[in-house]
Structure formats: structure tokens, C-alpha cells
């Protein structure tokens, strides 16, 4: 236990890892807050109109609501026609300038924030038998992201593992420590377990922190809504709620973080250089994600790049999952529930094997310099 306590102390106090991770977490959350704040990308009037309609009609879609919305659409179209007629009458000299101005001002006041109304109609058109609830899910769309990998999370995990294991190897300190009675296996086990524990906590802090931020600062709600309410999951066959979907996706990403940390350990042991380990880790995460972004097969492999992006497991509507059907409709590739549980078990097995590989490789006798 002393070894474990010592490793934690070394990491968080001496290497100031705690500050580094807090800064990275803060940057990650600020980035999310900025995205949430600008998510609807509308001016003030349009945003007011959008939220007004949302508050009036949100919830289970009923025939009365449909009728009211249809009437609203007709009314707005009528006002647009009136504007055109007014302009034509003024051009033809049938009305005076003052009449035109006063009437046009009235009509503009009635039709202001039209962008917000159009945005509301887009959300309304997404309501169907599979998704009978009208709700604003733009906050969830930002939270789920577009399948990208959080760079600050990757940097934090990398820094942590490099500070814990690879740095000692690079400086040659390991040779000294491994010659002590408690060197080698107990030490490596303590280091790796510390690394895994810290990765788990940091990743949980990132994904939990994002959700907390969204709920507290941006009134994110609708945890009970179907996953299909999120634009990116509109075609998903999974019968999950938004809250459940976020939880399971975070779990998969957590597993991805553990796989990444163990792979960094392996690469670090082979290269014995923090710089090259960092470089190889980055290209190992980002290049497959970039090069094979349209290949769904990558989600069947327990790679950090596919686990950390994760959306494809629930059939996100993106390059890799979506494909055209015979009649031109858009279909999505999907994991079944059984397949996903099997895959997750395989990932856990991979984590265990990587852990073992790390212990064996780090404690292997080194060749003389």
C-alpha cells in the first residue's frame, strides 16, 4: 500500500499533475460552454421567437398542437404575402409613402425573428411515429458532439502516463528502483494501477463535468426523451433515452481512455522517450480517426480512436454509419444489443491483456547499454 500511496503522491504533488489536469478540464468545459452558448446561432429576436414556440408546443405531439402549428404557419405565410402585396401597391403608386411605411413596420414587427420560427419548424418536422415528442435537443447535440476526440482529454491522459512511467525510464531511474527489494513487479503494478485509476477519474470528471455544466449553466433537460431526439441519432434503432445514451457513450469512452493509457505505457517502454511516446500516441489516436472516418469497420476494433469517438456504436448519422438504401433512403449501420455487450466484454479483456503485457514488458530484463 505504501507503494501505491507514494505513486499517487509523486504524481499529484511532485509532478503537479493535479494542476495540469484541472487546467485541461477547465479548458474542456470552457470549450463546451462556448459551443452551448452559440449552438443555435441566431440573433436575439429569432432566439426569443424560437423559445416562445418551444415553450408553447414542447412535449408529446397532439392533434390540437398540430392544428395550432399549422395555423401559425398559415398566418406567417399570410403576413409574407401581405408584405409582397404592399410593396407592389407602393410601387404601382396605389398607396402613399406614409401608409407603406406604417403598414410595413407593423408587418415587420409581426414577422421578426423568422429565422427562429424556421428553426422551430425544422425541429417540428423531425417529429414522427418513432419520435412523437417535440423538444429542443440542441444542447444534447452539442454534448454528444460529432464523433470527434477530445484533444484535451488525450493530452491529460498522455501527460499523466508519461509522468508516471516513461519519464523514469528515460532518466534511467528505473534501473536503480528495480534493483531494490520492492522494485519491478510490485512497483510496476502500483504505477499502472495508479495510471488506470487516474485515467478513470479524469475521464469521469471530463464527461461528468460536461453534463453538469450543461445542466447547471444552460438548463439542459429532457433526460427522459428518446435518444432519437438528438439530431445525430435520429436514425438509431436503439430504444434508449438521452440520459442513458450519454451514460453508455461515456462508459465506452472511459474504456477507450484506459486502452489509450495502457498503449502509451507499452510504446513508452519500447521507445524510452517521452517525446517520441507522445508523438506516436497522438498519431495513433488521430490518424486512424481522420483516415478512416468513413469506414464503419473501425468500430469493431478496440482502438482508442474508435472508442474515444464512440457515437458510431449507437448508429450516429455520420460518414461511417450512414449509407444509401436501394430506394435512395438513408440507412445506418448498427450494433445490436448483444453485439455491443460482447464487444464491451472483449474491450475489458483487451484492457486486462494490455495490463499484463505492460507488466511483463516493463519488468523484462534489459539489454546492456
Amino acid at each position, binding site marked *: 500500500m505504501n507503494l501505491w500511496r507514494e505513486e499517487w503522491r509523486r504524481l499529484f504533488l511532485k509532478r503537479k499533475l493535479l494542476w495540469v489536469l484541472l487546467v485541461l478540464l477547465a479548458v474542456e468545459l470552457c470549450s463546451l460552454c462556448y459551443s452551448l452558448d452559440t449552438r443555435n446561432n441566431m440573433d436575439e429576436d429569432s432566439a426569443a421567437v424560437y423559445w416562445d414556440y418551444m415553450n408553447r408546443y414542447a412535449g408529446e405531439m397532439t392533434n390540437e398542437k398540430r392544428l395550432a402549428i399549422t395555423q401559425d404557419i398559415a398566418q406567417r405565410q399570410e403576413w409574407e404575402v401581405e408584405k409582397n402585396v404592399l410593396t407592389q401597391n407602393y410601387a404601382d403608386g396605389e398607396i402613399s409613402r406614409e401608409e407603406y411605411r406604417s403598414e410595413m413596420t407593423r408587418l415587420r414587427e409581426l414577422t421578426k425573428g423568422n429565422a427562429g420560427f424556421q428553426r422551430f419548424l425544422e425541429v417540428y418536422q423531425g417529429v414522427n411515429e418513432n419520435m412523437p415528442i417535440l423538444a429542443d435537443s440542441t444542447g444534447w447535440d452539442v454534448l454528444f458532439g460529432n464523433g470527434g476526440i477530445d484533444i484535451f482529454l488525450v493530452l491529460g491522459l498522455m*501527460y499523466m502516463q508519461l509522468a508516471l512511467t516513461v519519464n523514469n525510464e528515460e532518466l534511467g531511474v528505473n534501473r536503480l528502483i528495480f534493483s531494490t527489494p520492492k522494485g519491478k513487479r510490485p512497483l510496476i503494478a502500483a504505477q499502472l494501477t495508479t495510471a488506470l485509476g487516474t485515467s478513470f477519474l479524469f475521464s469521469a470528471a471530463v464527461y461528468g463535468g460536461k453534463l453538469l455544466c450543461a445542466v447547471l449553466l444552460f438548463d439542459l433537460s429532457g433526460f427522459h426523451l428518446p435518444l432519437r431526439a438528438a439530431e445525430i441519432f435520429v436514425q438509431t434503432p436503439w430504444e434508449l433515452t438521452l440520459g442513458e445514451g450519454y451514460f453508455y457513450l461515456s462508459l465506452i469512452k472511459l474504456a477507450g481512455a484506459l486502452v489509450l493509457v495502457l498503449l502509451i505505457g507499452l510504446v513508452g517502454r519500447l521507445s524510452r522517450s517521452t*517525446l*517520441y511516446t*507522445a508523438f506516436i500516441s*497522438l498519431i495513433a489516436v488521430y*490518424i486512424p480517426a*481522420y483516415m478512416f472516418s468513413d469506414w464503419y469497420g473501425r468500430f469493431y476494433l478496440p482502438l482508442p480512436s474508435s472508442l474515444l469517438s464512440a457515437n458510431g456504436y449507437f448508429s450516429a448519422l455520420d460518414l461511417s454509419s450512414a449509407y444509401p438504401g436501394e430506394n435512395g433512403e438513408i440507412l445506418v449501420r448498427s450494433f445490436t444489443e448483444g453485439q455491443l455487450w460482447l464487444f464491451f466484454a472483449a474491450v475489458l479483456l483487451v484492457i486486462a491483456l494490455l495490463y499484463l503485457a505492460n507488466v511483463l514488458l516493463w519488468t523484462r530484463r534489459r539489454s546492456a547499454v
Partner: protein
Amino acid sequence: MKQLFAHEMKKIFSNRLFLFLLLFLLFVDGLYIYKTYDAYRDPYNKDASEAQWEIYKTVEGEITAEKVNALTAMIARLEADNAESGSGLDPSMVGDNAGETESGYYYSAFWDLTVARNLFDKLSDAYYYSRDMEALLTENEALLALYRGKGNTALVKQAELIAESYSGRAITAYYDTETYGSYFAYDFSSFLILLLVFLLTAALYAGETESGMRYLLRSTPGGRLRLVAAKQCAMAVSVTVICLLFFVCDFLMFLWCVRLRGGGNPLYSIAAFSETPLHLSIGGFALLLAALKWMGFLCFGQIGCLFSSLFDKSFLVFTADLLLCFALMLMSTYSGGILESLNLFNPLQLLIGREMFYTFRVVNLFGTPVFRYTVCLGCCIGLWLLLLGATAALNNAGMMRRRRSA
């Protein structure tokens, strides 16, 4: 000095892991181009691509009345065929009717008609380009007279520059130059080169601090300015070698995967560059773009050297380089206000340099309009020299870095 330079070069290129990563990333780059741009792997695209090529071959080259008439006649024939047989693509018609189409490759007259019409539109655009430029110049003449009348010397100079840049333009030969557009817009290799430059420069100075050799080297006769000069030269040569390797790889892969046609045509024959003020051929612009990118990578290399002189750990240098690059990327996506001026010093602008040449963009320098790309290049060269000076000063300074206790 020569020995120091040779030693620094040996340090970089004798590192087997570095060489392996360089070759690996070259392979990844080539693979990415093949995967993204090779039109022949997908059978559907292959047939479509070959059909387009067969029809395109009839009009490629100098625009003549005979070619235009032949294309017009082909369109008339295809319209008649299409009216008889009905429109729409029908894969089941492959084999039976493929030989009867104009291109000899595709399913029905409808596809050939679409291709021929698109070609005719592009041919018309090329043929009438000079007329469009004449109209622009006429409008400009009117504005020039107005500005002269108002006594606005800055705008007068700008209008004169427009007249000089856009006069005497014509596209006399038609080639499918859009493949060059894809080549110029290809940025993946820039991302890989940037990573390699950061890797290369991270350990240049920080590596010696980490190993404790720094203090020893600084105490030797050649340990200060001469060593810095040798390292800087080695960095510049290494960056040049890496750039050359990737540029050649990109060009050869594009040549293999897509048909790069019309390298001798003027740059403005590419649709995205129709308003460019440059009077260069496409091939000439490719060389210019490569030179700009090389300058951009040198700037980033110099930034890496400066960070390497500041930080003790090479990993921290690498991380700082990445974060700065990320910040510069964010900066380059915003425009307007002070960011417009700051972006002139952003070396990332040189890496995506093609965007500066799309349209006529000038910066008003003391009443004289200067092309934005010229100002940007000048600012980045100035930035590089400043960073070089700062790196040399840091490493030559008499202050010893305080040792950290173990």
C-alpha cells in the same frame, strides 16, 4: 562550424525512430491520397470516370470552332437519343447498350448527355472569360474616373492595380484543371509535416538541457553562437528535406491517382481562381505554393526552436507547439477587426496560402495598395527573423538557467 552542422544533421537523421516515423508518415500520406482521390477503385466511379474522359478528350486543348461544333452536334444527337430511349440511369442496361453510347462506357444516353452539357458549360466559361474580364475592366475604368474626380488617391491606385492585374486575359485552351484545384486544396500532408517539424525541433535545445549537456557545451569555445548557428542551419535543412519529400510524394500520388491536366494553362482557368490577380501558370503557382508552405514550416520550426530554448522538457515543448498551433488555427478562422491584422503574422496563413490568391485582396500600406499575400509573406519572414534572433539571444545569454533540485 561545418563539423558542428554535420554533427547536428547526423543527430537528426541517424535517429532510426525518427527516420521510421518519417517514412511511415510518407506512406500514410500516399495512402490517404490513394484512398481519397483514386477514381478507379470503385467500379461505379470507374465507368463514370472513363465515360467523362472519352468525351472530354474530344475537346481538350486549344479551343477551336471545330471542337465547339462537334460538341454541339454531339449534344443534339444525345438529346434526340435521350428523348427516344427515356432518361435515367439503369444499371441493368450495362453490357447490352454500353457500346452504343457516345462514350462507349456508360449505361444510357442520359449520362453522356449530362457529361457533354457540363463540358459545354465549362468550355463556354473558358471561351467567354476574356469577355467577362473586359466587362470588369470597363466597370473599373468608370470607378477609376470617379475616384480621380473625388481625389481619393488610395482608391485610384487600387483601381489602377486592378486594371494592371486583369488586363489582357484570355483562356485559349481548355483542360480539366479542377484536379489541380483538388491538389492545391490538399492539406493532410501539411498536418503531417507540421507534426514532424514539432518533433524535430522539440529536442533540439531541450534535449541537451534534459541530458545535462547544455552547461558543458556552453562552456566550450564553439558552444554558444556557433552551436546555435549550426543547430538553426540543421533545422532549416531538415525542414527543407522533409518538405521536399512530402511535396514530391503528393505530386506523384496525385499524378497517378487523378489526371492532372493543363499545368501550362493560366491559373485563372481553375474555377476557384477565376478572380486571382496572379499572372502565373498552374505549374508556376504550384511551385509558389510549395515555397510559401516551406516558409510557413520554417516559421513553425523557429517557434519550436524558441520553445525548446525556453522549456526544460522536450515533451513540454511538443505540447506547447501543439497548443500554439491550435490557437493559431482558431485565430485564422476568425476575421475582421484586429484579428485581420494579426492574421498577417500567422504562419498558418502560408500553409493554407491558396486562399490568399482566390480574389483581389489588398492591404493599404501608407496609401499604397499592396497584395495581402505579399504583406503576409513579408510579416512571416519578419516573424521568422525575430524568432531566430530571440532564440540566438536566449542561448547566447550569460545567465545560467537555475538548476532544479532533483
